[in-house]
């Protein structure tokens, strides 16, 4: 009877093309020598190499974690190439020197980096495999003392800042994938907002995996000084391939007194095909520290891609009156698996956190929300509000919720709401009876379901997110 909803007609992934560009790829395998090589290619100072090696030695002793609610075959860490970069990359003085093929690639992805075509109001750092290709609007930002550049450049140009904050939120031995990232990270973005500055542009990084048999290990660090504000957005995509590719990123955010960081993600890595072949393993550690009083960190994520997603963007609410937020939409279609959620650690007084998670499962997708809210002894009058909603499309998919709550202060106020709904035949029929097609009906119902999260996205990207959701679910109803 409900076969209409279950019918799977597959929509090809729209960002699956490969750029034919000569690449400088380090042979597969991981060793101290490979790490030295990466460090040398990046022209890093000695302390950075030492930090990487320390992480690597720790990683060797760590077991790969398997507590999450996802299944996948063994990963051959020696079969992955840890560095790939487009060849002939001179020291870039201007965008004129960027390989036109790269500019074209990003344009195809809707990320114009040429001066005349740039998105108004958005500064973009474009990362292609292991290197940052271009960062737009740098001069405009520099006028206000804002630093926005590739992290490899920041390590060379602003070593004191990087050294002070790198690993201060996610230590090099935090977990297996974070340790791996710390050892081999290649590029990513660095943003520094000085005291009292409200960043006039949206900062954005677009990550593109192109080379095969490589992993992408980017590292992003954002520091917001006292009283500053920044909104940052990352997007990503990868070609269609039969193999699984590993993406293990680390993002660290630091907000000092009265500072606000808004971090948005639109994750659209290749999800694999209908049989579960290929796709990105997206194992990511993201954490923000609200170090100062009245500081605020807000995570918004729209996760539609990847074969497997394993990420828990969290906030350490250290400063009194600090605020942590997590707004998430995670979609699993076909054979995708997602185990995602957040960690809110309350240390300071009057700290508040809000969690709104929307999981959508279709096809044979498995979607897990996993969240931890921890209120420590000193966190008087801490408050948390959590809302976890799951939506099922069809009857071969699954939704799971694991909310962990650990309260050690009796003044805490906790609220938790959860719901599971199914897009029913009746809802779709209702829309059809008004002339709306089944596809449009599902997209409407799903967008309505996600509205509370979409309204948190910067305007320029909210439309993109809605469109993306439509694409991810296209074909999930007949």
């Amino acid at each position, binding site marked *: 009877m409900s076969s*209409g909803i279950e019918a799977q007609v597959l929509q090809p992934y729209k960002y699956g093309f490969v750029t034919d560009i000569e690449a400088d790829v380090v042979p597969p395998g991981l060793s101290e020598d490979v790490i030295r090589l990466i460090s040398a290619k990046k022209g890093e100072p000695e302390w950075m190499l030492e930090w990487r090696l320390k992480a690597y030695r720790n990683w060797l002793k760590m077991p790969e974690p398997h507590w999450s609610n996802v299944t996948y075959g063994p990963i051959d860490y020696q079969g992955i190439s840890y560095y790939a970069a487009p060849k002939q990359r001179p020291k870039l003085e201007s965008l004129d020197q960027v390989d036109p093929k790269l500019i074209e690639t990003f344009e195809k992805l809707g990320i114009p980096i040429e001066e005349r075509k740039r998105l108004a109001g958005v500064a973009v750092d474009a990362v292609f495999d292991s290197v940052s290709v271009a960062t737009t609007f740098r001069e405009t930002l520099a006028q206000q003392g804002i630093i926005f550049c590739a992290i490899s450049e920041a390590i060379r140009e602003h070593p004191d800042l990087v050294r002070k904050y790198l690993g201060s939120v996610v230590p090099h031995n935090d977990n297996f994938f974070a340790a791996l990232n710390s050892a081999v990270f290649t590029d990513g973005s660095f943003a520094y907002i000085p005291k009292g500055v409200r960043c006039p542009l949206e900062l954005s990084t677009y990550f593109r995996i192109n080379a095969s048999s490589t992993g992408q290990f980017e590292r992003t660090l954002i520091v917001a000084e006292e009283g500053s504000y920044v909104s940052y957005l990352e997007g990503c995509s990868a070609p269609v391939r039969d193999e699984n590719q590993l993406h293990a990123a680390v993002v660290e955010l630091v907000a000092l007194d009265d500072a606000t960081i808004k971090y948005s993600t639109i994750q659209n890595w290749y999800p694999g095909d209908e049989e579960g072949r290929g796709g990105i393993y997206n194992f990511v550690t993201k954490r923000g520290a609200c170090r100062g009083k009245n500081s605020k960190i807000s995570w918004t994520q729209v996760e539609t891609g990847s074969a497997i997603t394993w990420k828990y963007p969290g906030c350490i609410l250290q400063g009194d009156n600090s605020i942590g937020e997590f707004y998430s939409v995670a979609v699993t279609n076909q054979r995708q698996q997602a185990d995602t959620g957040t960690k809110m650690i309350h240390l300071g007084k009057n700290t508040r956190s809000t969690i709104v998670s929307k999981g959508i499962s279709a096809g044979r997708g498995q979607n897990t929300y996993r969240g931890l809210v921890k209120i420590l002894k000193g966190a008087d009058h801490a408050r948390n509000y959590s809302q976890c909603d799951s939506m099922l499309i069809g009857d071969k998919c699954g939704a799971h919720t694991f909310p962990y709550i650990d309260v050690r202060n009796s003044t805490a106020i906790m609220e938790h709401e959860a719901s599971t709904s199914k897009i029913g035949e009746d809802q779709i029929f*209702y*829309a059809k009876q008004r002339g709306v097609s089944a596809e449009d009906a599902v997209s409407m119902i799903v967008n309505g379901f996600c509205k*509370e999260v979409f309204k948190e996205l910067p305007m320029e990207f909210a439309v993109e997110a809605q469109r993306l959701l439509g694409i991810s679910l296209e074909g999930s109803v007949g």
Partner: protein
Amino acid sequence: MTLLQIKNLRASVEGREILQGVDLTVNTGEVHAIMGPNGSGKSTLAQVLAGHPAYTVTAGSALYEGKDLFAMTPEERAREGVFLAFQYPVAIRGITNAYFLRSAVNAIRKHRGTEELGPVEFMDALEEKLKVIGWDDSYLSRPVNEGFSGGEKKRNEILQLAVLEPKLAILDETDSGLDIDALKTVARTVEKLRRPDNATVMVTHYYRILTHIQPDFVHVLAAGRIVKSGGKELAQELEEKGYDWIREPAAVA
């Protein structure tokens, strides 16, 4: 002009046959009331005409404007002008009535080859429509049926009816759950929408609404068949005597 012609319609749900040979002809300009006891198949008839996937047509035919209605998908029927006011309208969270209505209007316009309306144009057209039927716009910014009372949901169906201007409107117990004032508003709106080129089929339990909307024909559905048809005076008779007097001779015959 004949708008809808149903012949010997049989339909079942979950293997149970509910409609057991329904014949009904509806011409433009007419209002038909379908009455009958609980479980007689009134709502099934409404759902089958709209194309609800839970119901299977096992025999018979229905021609809508001369075309085979059952060969059309539910959305095609809607775009061709068949509208069902649901007995139990469903909620769509996070989507405003205005957005939902615009999607519906544009789907229909696209089907007819007319230009789709942008949000501003649509709102202008909608305000105009609301004025004509004398409703305020408080419904428009609320999510579709979310948190609506039973009566509000029914009124909302009528609002959609007014905006979509179908050729054939099927009202499935729109009057149940309405208080007197709401009933009057709904009835008045339906009356206002009456035109020589459209028709209404009202499924109802109660005589009450028929004092506000004058039907041209009243049919009694019992055990999946129309057992008696007549003018509006039949409704009055049913109100006084109940259904048993009709059912019994039918059973004997």
